[in-house]
């Protein structure tokens, strides 16, 4: 019984729905505020993403004629739920809920499920703009997947070098290794991988310089072109929550092992780190860069970012 209650607590409160949504909304709001300040503006209130979501909930949901009704409505819910389950698997510094039953590859694929749910929703809407949008979303996915995979392998080798198998994918093992040997980020051979991961984060989320799939000025919001009302709001919320989850994943992979001994304090540390990561990886490029072109994103990720990750992987492989 208590077990069930704990599960419910995990799913609903921490690190599940409530925590993710609150932190995600705050991070997204902070990002918008910071971008505005960097552009010499005042910027929206901190809770603006939350207002946006609520506003969307109060609107009509129109299902277009060419849409496949069930998938059109199910896709956002499924994507959001899949994302929340990722949060359950990502360890928050030393405090983990279900991270022993998942590994980095699983997380990589669960994040893919989130992207795919958006793509399927867009496809189900039947709009030509959504068609272009999903095509771009997929290209973005291919782009960041290569560096992401290389980073995962580098981290897996680094943390697993001392184990009998020589490698590991297990998040828990990675966090434990960092607790014993210091955070990944402080091993110089991992710094290129960390940089690559910092580049992967905004593209995975679809933040401004890499938001080729939702380019509102070119292709009318792309994947979201036909979404209105609560489903659209849920997609926006998913976007916010993804910001937190990617930051938390970065913390687990590169800054893990720091432990204060108290779960609540650990969560707070992760939130603070997330704010820093959000600022560095999302707000600054957003404020400084114009949107990339599709083929530029692909080229950038498969050459520069993948190159960084590869340097790290080779260094780690050489035992440095």
């Amino acid at each position, binding site marked *: 019984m208590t077990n069930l209650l704990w599960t419910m607590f995990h799913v609903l409160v921490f690190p599940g729905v409530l925590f993710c949504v609150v932190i995600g909304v705050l991070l997204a709001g902070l990002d918008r505020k*910071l971008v*505005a*300040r*960097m552009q*010499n*503006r005042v*910027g929206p209130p901190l809770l603006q993403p939350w207002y946006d979501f609520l506003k969307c909930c109060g609107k009509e949901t129109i299902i277009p004629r060419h849409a496949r009704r069930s998938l059109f409505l199910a896709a956002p819910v499924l994507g959001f739920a899949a994302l929340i389950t990722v949060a359950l698997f990502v360890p928050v510094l030393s405090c983990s809920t279900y991270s022993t039953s998942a590994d980095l590859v699983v997380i990589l694929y669960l994040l893919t499920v989130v992207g795919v749910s958006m793509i399927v929703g867009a496809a189900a809407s039947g709009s030509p703009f959504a068609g272009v949008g999903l095509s771009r979303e997929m290209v973005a996915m291919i782009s960041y997947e290569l560096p992401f995979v290389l980073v995962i392998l580098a981290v897996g080798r680094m943390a697993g070098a001392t184990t009998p198998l020589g490698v590991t994918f297990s998040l828990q093992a990675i966090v434990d290794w960092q607790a014993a040997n210091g955070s990944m980020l402080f091993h110089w051979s991992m710094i290129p991988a960390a940089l690559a991961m910092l580049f992967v984060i905004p593209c995975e989320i679809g933040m401004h310089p890499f938001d080729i799939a939702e380019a509102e000025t070119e292709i009318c919001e792309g994947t979201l072109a036909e979404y209105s009302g609560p489903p659209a709001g849920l997609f926006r919320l998913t976007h916010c929550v993804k910001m937190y989850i990617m930051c938390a994943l970065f913390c687990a992979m590169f800054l893990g092992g720091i432990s204060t001994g108290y779960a609540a304090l650990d969560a707070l540390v992760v939130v603070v780190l997330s704010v820093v990561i959000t600022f560095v990886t999302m707000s*600054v490029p957003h404020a*400084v*860069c114009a949107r990339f072109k599709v083929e530029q994103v692909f080229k950038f990720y498969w050459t520069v970012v993948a190159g960084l990750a590869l340097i790290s992987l080779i260094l780690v492989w050489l035992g440095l």
Partner: protein
Amino acid sequence: MIPYLTKALGNLFRAPATEKFPKGEPPKAAPGYRGRIIYHPETCVNCGMCMRVCAPQCMERTIEPLPNGDQKITLTFDMTSCTFCSMCADFCARKSIELSDDYMIVGTQPEDFLVSGTFIKKAPPPKMTPEQIAELKAKAEAAKAAKAAAEKANG
């Protein structure tokens, strides 16, 4: 990219350049700004020049005859039709049209955008009969003669 970056980061510690406007008074427009039309009906002579030069034809004139023979003339400027070119003001001989610096032309009803003025144009006096004209002529000639006589006397 580096200059943008330094600028962006510098902006974080600078006060934003944003106006406070929706809270508080709207800022003043620049000198010479052509905003909402102000019409002075009291000086208007109803020459109609403004209507002739108005490209978007934003004025509407209604002429309403009054029982005493005067005319009630209403000139209405539709601010949602005006291009604020200031042509009417330039051509107005009596300077009874001017463009203010009030740019806040926002409203929900069509009436919010109308600027109108009314004045009463006096009816001209009635026509004179030939006798009256002859009398007046005689008066004038008499006056002329008196003048000439006076000059002679002085000279």
